[in-house]
């Protein structure tokens, strides 16, 4: 039994729903009690989907338990096929129905439906949402592409894109970006699945030369099976960031035998130049804490470190299935990997790491907001505002541009920092006046109730995340001198000085200590 206040992932049948809702012509009959229909609102509210997800819930009740919940399932299944006329049916059980052991697959078989039925076994008490999505996609691919013969003549530049789903982080825009990029570079993109595909499209997957796995959490299992069953290789480099996008296109072109022609698309990369421009000098060494699904977290760490010049001070994932990859990446940045689905543990790790920027999920956004640390969302689970109206991919060169904007804007920009220090003695200018561009992203003061561990809100910028200082550590004079340090670096100055004092057994901290520490930490 696990105590949970907040979960990063839903149950596995929600993963199956994401696959069903991604595809056309597919319907999912879920053996489930009243209440499980809440999952519909993930699609209709968070993603603003204009139609109900293609799911029928059997809604069995306590009084059915004594009689026959199996009959309830059968009639729901029959009615759903008649009403929605799907091309194929998924059947399965939610956590409660799993305990009843009604065997939805077997029951559906007795109905002798004239459409393919794919039964799902998703152990709710062991597995979670992403696993459920991956398993469902794999089962579907196997069911429809299993008995296909691969043709002798296959276009070498033909490929499929696997993995994008409903409720995936920016998947809608990633597909457009990556499909366009691949086409520009001479590739023939055939099927994109599961998002937008029909069951019959899955049968045509083996007609392409190779697969591209954009989201390994969803599609790696299916791609591995296609490799084994149909000898289809797959590209597994995830094109998030400029460097990875270039490598990704290179790999795809190599598989297609297109190495000779020049690579296009890179001219739309602005991240690289923006990152070199002098304004970005101020980004150097900013401490960034990263947490999310494995793919986005690992990619974020790589971009943060190599493309933006940040310092990765924490890296983790809630997906144990991909713990090994995240551990390897963490080692490269010399940080302790954090593999957990307990958000309280993540909060502790963030406090410990004292980042200047948090890149995470919706949950880390809230943690960062409470701690008054700038934050950007990089991974599911996300909320309604992470399905923006504008085109806003994460992948490809345009994705890298979007990432530059969304990670750098919450921070103080270089020119602005420069002007701030110039004007800091002006009577109209004070520490409480945040920079003009910060309102949209940065934590507003007193926006959310602050727990007792968080310091006085009026000095938020100053003491953001620095929670330990007792006033008696500093002499009054040293405290006054510290106030002369521009507020946006004051937190760091305070931290460094206190670390220096603690390391050297100095108490109290005087003006002298402040400048000794400054010299000590000078870069």
């Amino acid at each position, binding site marked *: *039994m*696990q*105590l*949970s*206040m*907040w*979960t990063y*992932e*839903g*149950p596995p*049948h*929600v993963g199956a729903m994401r696959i069903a809702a991604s595809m056309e012509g597919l319907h999912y009959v879920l053996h489930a*009690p*009243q*209440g*499980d*229909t*809440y*999952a*519909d*609102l*993930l699609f*209709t*509210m968070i993603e*603003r*989907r*204009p*139609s*109900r997800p293609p799911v*029928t*819930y*059997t*809604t*069995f*009740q*306590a009084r059915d*338990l004594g009689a026959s919940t199996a009959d309830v399932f059968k*009639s*729901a299944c029959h*009615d759903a096929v008649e*009403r929605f006329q799907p091309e194929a049916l998924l059947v399965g059980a*939610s*956590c*409660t129905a799993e*305990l*009843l052991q009604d065997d939805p697959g077997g029951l559906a078989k007795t109905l002798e439906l004239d459409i393919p039925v794919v039964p799902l076994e998703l*152990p*709710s*008490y*062991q597995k*979670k949402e992403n696993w459920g999505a991956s398993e469902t996609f794999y089962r579907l691919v196997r069911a429809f592409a299993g008995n296909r013969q691969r043709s002798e003549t296959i276009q070498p530049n033909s490929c499929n894109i696997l993995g994008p789903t409903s409720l995936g982080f920016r998947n809608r825009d990633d597909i457009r970006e990556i499909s366009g990029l691949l086409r520009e570079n001479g590739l023939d993109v055939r099927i994109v699945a599961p998002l937008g595909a029909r069951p019959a499209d899955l049968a045509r997957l083996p007609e392409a030369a190779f697969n591209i796995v954009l989201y390994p959490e969803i599609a790696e299992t299916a791609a591995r099976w296609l490799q084994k069953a149909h000898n289809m290789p797959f590209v597994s480099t995830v094109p998030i960031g400029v460097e990875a996008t270039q490598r990704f296109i290179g790999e795809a072109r190599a598989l297609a035998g297109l190495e000779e022609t020049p690579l296009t698309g890179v001219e739309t990369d602005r991240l690289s130049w923006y990152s070199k421009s002098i304004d970005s000098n101020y980004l150097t060494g900013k401490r960034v804490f990263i947490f999310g699904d494995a793919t986005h977290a690992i990619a974020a760490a790589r971009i943060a470190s190599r493309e933006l010049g940040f310092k990765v001070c924490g890296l983790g994932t809630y997906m144990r299935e991909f713990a090994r990859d995240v551990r390897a990446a963490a080692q490269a940045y010399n940080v302790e990997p954090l593999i957990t689905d307990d*958000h*309280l543990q993540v*909060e502790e790790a963030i406090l410990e790491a004292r980042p200047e920027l948090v890149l995470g999920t919706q949950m880390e956004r*809230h*943690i960062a907001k*409470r701690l008054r640390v700038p934050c950007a969302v990089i991974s599911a*689970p996300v*909320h309604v505002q992470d399905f923006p109206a504008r085109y806003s991919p994460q992948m490809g060169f345009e994705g890298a541009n979007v990432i530059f904007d969304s990670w750098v804007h919450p921070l103080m920009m270089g020119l602005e920092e420069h002007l701030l220090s110039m004007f800091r003695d002006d009577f109209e200018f004070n520490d409480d006046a945040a920079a003009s561009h910060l309102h949209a992203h940065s934590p507003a003061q007193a926006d*959310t109730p602050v727990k007792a561990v968080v310091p006085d809100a009026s000095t938020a910028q100053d003491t953001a995340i620095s929670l330990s200082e007792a006033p008696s550590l500093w002499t009054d004079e040293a405290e006054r001198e510290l106030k002369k340090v521009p507020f946006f670096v004051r937190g760091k100055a305070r931290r460094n000085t206190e670390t220096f004092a603690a390391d050297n057994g100095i108490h109290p901290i005087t003006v002298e200590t402040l400048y000794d520490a400054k010299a000590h930490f000078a870069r």
Partner: protein
Amino acid sequence: MNQTFRPGCERSATIRERGQHEVFCGLTSIIWLHRKVQDAFFLIVGSRTCAHLMQSAAGVMIFSEPRFATAIMEERDLAGMADMHDELDGVVEKLLARRPDIKMLVLVGSCPSEVIKFDLGKAAERLNRHYAPKHRVICYSGSGIETTFTQGEENFLAALVRDEPDAGKSQDSAKLVVAGCLPDVVEDQFQRLFKDLGIDGVHFLPGRTSAAMPKIDRSTRFVLAQPYLGAAAQALESRGASRINAIFPLGEEGTTAWLKAIADAFEVSEERFETVTAPARKRAWAALSHYRHLLSGKRVFLFPDSQLEPSLARFLAREIGAQIVEVGSPYLHREHVAGELALLPPGVALSEGQDVDRQIDRCRAADPDLIVCGMGLANPFEAEGRLTKWSIEFAFTPIQGYEQAGDLAELFARPLVRRNALSGKPATEEGASCS
């Protein structure tokens, strides 16, 4: 599966359906219960689905540490590799160490815990031996196989009433218990009205803290502030309290009728009742008049959600002149809502339970001007060009009492105002803004 029947006392046939219910389960009522009783913590004994439901339905991702959580059952619990009672004790220990300020721990049963017949009563008894009186432990079921949305509150209140006998022996017994969660602001308004009517010894159930439990006995009268409290009413009656029968305090008419029933039970004179309520009634009518022109004659279809639907329909029909096409309710407590049903205009279709696909068919065929429905259905209807109002707002917004009558009308008017604004129609009257 549909059967139509016509009991003698009812004006219209009831469509009874069983099929897919697009309604939350009883766990969802924890969203307002935990805000109401501020020293209580609700621990669901359930699955990952329960935890996911709670955070999705409430949008509670905003609070990183709310006063509810889920003890998620895992494979080893079900396979018997771990003793679930020991496991639960471990979870509770961890929780109370983290939140020592919690005075009342509420164990909440779920679909999976009910199906495996996990004995929460036994667990509560054992935990009470260990933690009471510092932390009192009670339990109830909010499982979807037995309860819909608001019935979770019903079971919670019943558990509170049943648990009380040892508490508060020294205090005077309550003269009037107002049962059913009301927002604090509404409670305060009612409390002032009761004082002006000369009724004292009034207690609200649940109280704002777990210790605020009134003493209930044969001298206690109670009135329901919400229509979904069958089990809670039974629990109060079994303690000797007697129910004051009334319609529910929604709108001016509902509030007046509700207060009048109470006033009559306490023998408040007609004059005094008139003097006390007249100014508030006048204000309520003034507020309603801002919206009546927007909603008058509009055809409204209500999907089942909170069991408030018959009261909402009565308000819409009688106070702002809307036409009601169908009133759905997940469950109808015949006795408690008899007064409401009697006030519905003839010809209104009433449905209990749900087969959501058939109901959507009926709704499309009727082509109403406004559809009151849950969040799973609202955007799909909007995408078809139909106007909707999220029903969950009626459970979360202060709508009861005189001072909220206008706000209640505004909730229905807002989608219409918005459509006008977006279609470039002339600006609507003042008071119809969407602030």
